[in-house]
């Protein structure tokens, strides 16, 4: 018998009873295939799903998406919603990299025309966009710039001339969360961010040149501007040191709040504060500043990608049709309205390694996509496929409008290094038609394809459960890693 028994309640849905861990206030619910379950149990991630279920004011269930894996406090892939009056906000439920997310840029380039240019294009991206340990960009932000970015997010990037106003329509929340307060962002946090706008970072962050290999939903693909054989560029990055510093500082404050409020936690990383408390409200306001910085960071890199392509092809990016498909965030806490037991309620929805997935008709979706649902961008590993999905209305019913965020790790970083010791990963990927440029050798081994689940297995679950629909599949051609 597993320590945390899971009961199948529907295809791809597994329930973790409230009795699994003392103090659980709601059940857990994990979205997974039959094949994934033994691994999920072996990794003990249901223990973290159960831990989240002990937090005050949690509503309906502690959810986990199929890319679930062991995190700290919250599992990666976790979704949890909290009542605004009785519930808590937890920085650990957002993660250190606040508004880590994915941007997808389309083009009118066809793979058959440019396949031989991929190594040079990848080199050009690698040279033009700072990446790797402690990477710093060319843009040095003044205090005034920082304040504007923290309060206005991606709008600053447009104002500074790195992106186009039309880009904002293709970003979750238009790349800006209001009800923020830059005065809550410490001097140290600002110092960490001073030279980090327009930088990729390290670890699992990447820029990929991809080709569209399959279209599954013609109507949605057409709305998103996707077609078979098309070249796309995907960026995965977040709020860099700024988000980390805000999370770190708040976690310390919330250790004290937990003690003051007498909240019993199974893991100190779940430290939290009542949403209506000064500490809770201050965290949400500072977190929104970090989310705004992350959107500005990704959109600045979009500008740098466009510059690279424009310079390479000696054409303006507009004539390469390098418009945004969409930008999604997958580490965030948002105040949203959801129906619970037939009643509309305002909830604080934490998504840690999960993507908002709005169904057709939702007014928050750009006009051009509203009839087909919000684009959901699912990066795969650097050898296998990534996906574009679309949100469904069933996601509102089942997961507070949430879906998966990526492939999800299968091996620890150490295990990945050990499993590939002595192997020439760059050569192996080249044999598969993937050109890789990475700053750090260690990162290559930590990020090998076999360290991740196949994104196909993950998307099969969210599609099978009805919380997303499949739109397109892409394969990597050129990869830039930090």
């Amino acid at each position, binding site marked *: 018998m597993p320590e945390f028994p899971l009961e199948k309640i529907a295809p791809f849905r597994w329930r973790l009873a409230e009795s699994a861990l003392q103090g659980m206030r709601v059940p857990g619910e994990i979205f997974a295939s039959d094949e994934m379950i033994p691994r999920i149990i072996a*990794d003990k991630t249901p223990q973290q799903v159960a831990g989240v279920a002990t937090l005050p004011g949690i509503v309906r269930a502690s959810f986990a998406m199929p890319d679930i*894996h*062991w*995190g*700290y*406090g919250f599992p*990666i892939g976790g979704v949890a919603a909290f009542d605004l009056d009785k519930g808590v906000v937890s920085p*650990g439920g957002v993660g*250190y*990299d606040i508004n880590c997310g994915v941007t997808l840029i389309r083009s009118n380039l066809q793979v058959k025309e440019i396949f031989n240019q991929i190594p040079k294009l990848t080199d050009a991206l690698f040279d033009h966009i700072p990446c*790797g*340990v*402690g990477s710093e960009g060319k843009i040095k932000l003044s205090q005034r710039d920082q304040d504007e970015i923290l309060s206005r997010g991606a709008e600053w990037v447009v104002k500074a001339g790195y992106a186009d106003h039309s880009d904002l329509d293709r970003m979750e929340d238009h790349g800006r969360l209001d009800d923020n307060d830059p005065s809550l962002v410490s001097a*140290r946090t600002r*110092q*960490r961010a001073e030279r980090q706008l327009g930088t990729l*970072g*390290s*670890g699992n962050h990447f820029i990929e040149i991809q080709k569209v290999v399959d279209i599954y939903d013609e109507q949605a693909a057409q709305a998103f501007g996707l077609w078979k054989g098309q070249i796309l560029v995907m960026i995965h990055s977040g709020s860099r*040191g700024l988000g*980390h510093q805000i*999370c*770190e500082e708040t*976690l*310390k404050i919330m*250790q*004290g709040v937990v*003690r003051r409020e007498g909240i019993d936690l199974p*893991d*100190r*990383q779940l*430290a939290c504060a009542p949403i209506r408390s000064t500490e809770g409200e201050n965290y949400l306001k500072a977190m929104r500043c970090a989310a705004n910085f992350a959107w500005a960071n990704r959109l600045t890199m979009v500008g740098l990608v466009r510059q690279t392509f424009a310079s390479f092809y000696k054409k303006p990016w507009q004539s390469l049709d390098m418009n945004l498909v969409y930008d999604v965030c997958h580490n965030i806490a948002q105040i949203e309205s959801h129906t619970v037991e037939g009643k509309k309620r305002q909830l604080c929805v934490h998504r840690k390694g999960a993507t908002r997935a709005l169904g057709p008709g939702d007014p928050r979706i750009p006009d051009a996509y509203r009839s087909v649902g919000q684009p959901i961008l699912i990066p795969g590993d650097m050898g296998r496929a990534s996906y574009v999905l679309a949100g469904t209305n069933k996601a509102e019913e089942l997961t507070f409008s949430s879906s998966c965020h990526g492939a999800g*790790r299968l*091996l*620890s*970083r*150490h*295990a990945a290094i050990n499993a590939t010791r002595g192997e020439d990963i760059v050569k192996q990927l080249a044999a598969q038609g993937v050109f890789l440029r990475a700053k*750090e050798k*260690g990162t290559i081994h930590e990020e090998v394809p076999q360290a991740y689940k196949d994104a196909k297995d993950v998307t099969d679950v969210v599609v099978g459960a009805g919380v997303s629909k499949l739109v397109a599949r892409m394969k990597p051609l050129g990869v830039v890693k*930090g």
Partner: protein
Amino acid sequence: MYRTVAHQADIAIGVEADSLEGLFQESLAALIDLLTNGEAANVSGEELETFMIEADGFDNEVLLVGLLSELLFASQTLKWGPRKIVSVNLVPNARVSAIISGLPDGGGERLCREIKAVTYHYLKITHFDLWRVSIVFDV
């Protein structure tokens, strides 16, 4: 003394020492080792300077996270290249400081690995025959 412990997405270490102060010292040394991929212990002929880091908190776990986070900030943002722990001064459950020797301004450019944060994940300092703690770093 420290050893790495398997963690699916990040880096975890187990540290042990004869004293609580020693545990803080060993934890700092382990972090320097991780940041420099073990190279800090092997360098010689560098003109080292010292710098101080400090943290406060209501319990020893908060102090440990605070002190390690200060070392991360000094090395990754202020670009200090840490080499050795000179001393640790601990007032349990109140405050801690450490003197570190290293390369000033720019020495941190040679760091091999980015460690983004020190987590509280299942963080618990224990004492039986030795003082022990497991620390998970976000990478």
